[in-house]
């Protein structure tokens, strides 16, 4: 990523490069990306200090409740949201559904989330994301999954957690897994890397790059079950670069206050005094589902290969 070899003097501009894709995610760091289902919610999110919004038709809690096939959102709704805010707008495509991604690119969304929250369109293959000029974010539960997605062209990673539950336990599990695997990888001698790459199903070059960097080669947010300012700060202290909050804001008693509190908590994640202040009097959090009570078949995080 630090290869400046092809740079020429004032003149030719290159769009859609990997550095430009990763660069937008770098600008989102230390911030909160919020799920919104209409322009009104998008404006509330921007007002509260969100760094980006994720446009989708139903938040994960409702997708869970309603059942059925969850697909890309209506382009009309996405256009309305794009027109209503100045911050970046993301939108979700189904795993492997490269035509939904083409449509989102044509709409001018700033990031595509190839997301397990929607019903997968392909049970073996993800989208070849290098083919696109817009960047992609993908979910992961472990280092192998993260590096497979980056190998396919993802410019940002989010640990999956369990969306639509308000239970942070899976977000913690996945972030600890990825970060712990990276810490162990750093201690591995180089001769063990090829076998390790084989075992976790990850491209060797990315395993080596991750070892050398001591972190994923792209920005890594946490997602799936974050519902309170303390949850956001917990994920930041564990070591992620920022957070996605899905159902946690607009399924709570006071979305405006809660959104603002989560933004403040993400910036001041290491300051317990500020965390105490912002956690006061926020009203009811989203009701939530214990992940341990969910049958295996309803786990969204197991989608993705």
């Amino acid at each position, binding site marked *: 990523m630090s290869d400046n070899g092809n740079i020429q003097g004032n003149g030719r501009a290159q769009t859609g490069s990997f550095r430009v894709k990763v660069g937008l995610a770098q600008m989102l760091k230390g911030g909160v990306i919020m799920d919104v289902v209409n322009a009104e919610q998008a404006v509330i999110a921007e007002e509260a200090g969100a*760094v980006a919004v994720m446009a989708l038709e139903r938040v994960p809690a409702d997708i869970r409740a309603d059942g059925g096939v969850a697909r890309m959102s209506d382009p009309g709704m996405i256009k309305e949201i794009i027109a209503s805010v100045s911050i970046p707008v993301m939108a979700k495509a189904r795993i492997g559904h490269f035509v939904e991604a083409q449509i989102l690119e044509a709409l001018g969304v700033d990031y595509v989330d190839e997301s397990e929250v929607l019903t997968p369109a392909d049970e073996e293959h993800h989208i070849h994301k290098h083919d696109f*000029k817009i960047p992609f974010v993908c979910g992961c539960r472990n280092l192998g999954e993260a590096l497979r997605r980056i190998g396919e062209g993802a410019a940002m990673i989010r640990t999956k957690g369990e969306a639509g539950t308000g239970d942070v336990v899976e977000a913690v599990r996945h972030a600890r897994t990825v970060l712990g695997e990276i810490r162990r990888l750093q201690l591995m001698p180089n001769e063990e890397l090829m076998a390790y790459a084989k075992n976790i199903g990850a491209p060797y070059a990315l395993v080596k790059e991750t070892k050398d960097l001591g972190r994923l080669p792209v920005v890594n947010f946490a997602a799936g079950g974050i519902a309170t300012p303390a949850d956001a700060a917990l994920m930041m202290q564990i070591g992620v670069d920022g957070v996605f909050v899905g159902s946690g804001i607009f399924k709570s008693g006071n979305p405006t206050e809660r959104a603002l509190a989560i933004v403040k908590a993400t910036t001041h994640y290491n300051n317990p005094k500020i965390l105490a202040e912002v956690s006061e009097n926020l009203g009811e959090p989203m009701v939530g589902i214990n992940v341990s009570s969910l049958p295996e078949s309803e786990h969204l995080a197991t989608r993705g290969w």
Partner: protein
Amino acid sequence: MKIGVLALQGAFIEHIKMLEGMGVEAIEVRLPEQLAGLDGLIIPGGESTTIGKLAVMYDLMEPLRRFAAEKAVWGTCAGMIFMAQDVGANQPLLGIMDIVVARNAFGRQVESFETGLDVAVFENGQSAPFPAVFIRAPKLVEAKGDAEVIVRLADGTAVAAQQGKWLVTSFHPELTGDDRFHRYFLSLVREVKIDD
């Protein structure tokens, strides 16, 4: 020398790594008291609306203006927006530089780009082009008073300006590993220090 990097949100770690790589002490700034003892400040890229709101909520606006009145400050991308007098939108601004800026002026992410720039202010102006990354970048619409455009794209678009000890770039020198812009900023910091 001690340089602060405003760490409310955005790519502040990238700036800190660049500074540390040059042997300069770098401090994350999230609250007003953290400005004490700094020789200069970098306001990083990120979302300018988010950075502005957090700066207002944590009473940083006046302390930042007072700091800038005496010390060197450099804003990259969102930082450039935050330092401007006018961006044609209703959002919190420091307004310390006499510049007018247009947000997202090159288009959405699909139009984000990288290119090489000839930068005359470097000590060796004839050296290699500077690799510049523009992410949903702002444009400098106008530099007024003492503010002066120092870098332009081939088509004439202004993308960096200086006003005495204040510097703004609409691109991200913290993303490329090329530290020439950081060195240039440190030279402005040193000039202020010598004048003290």
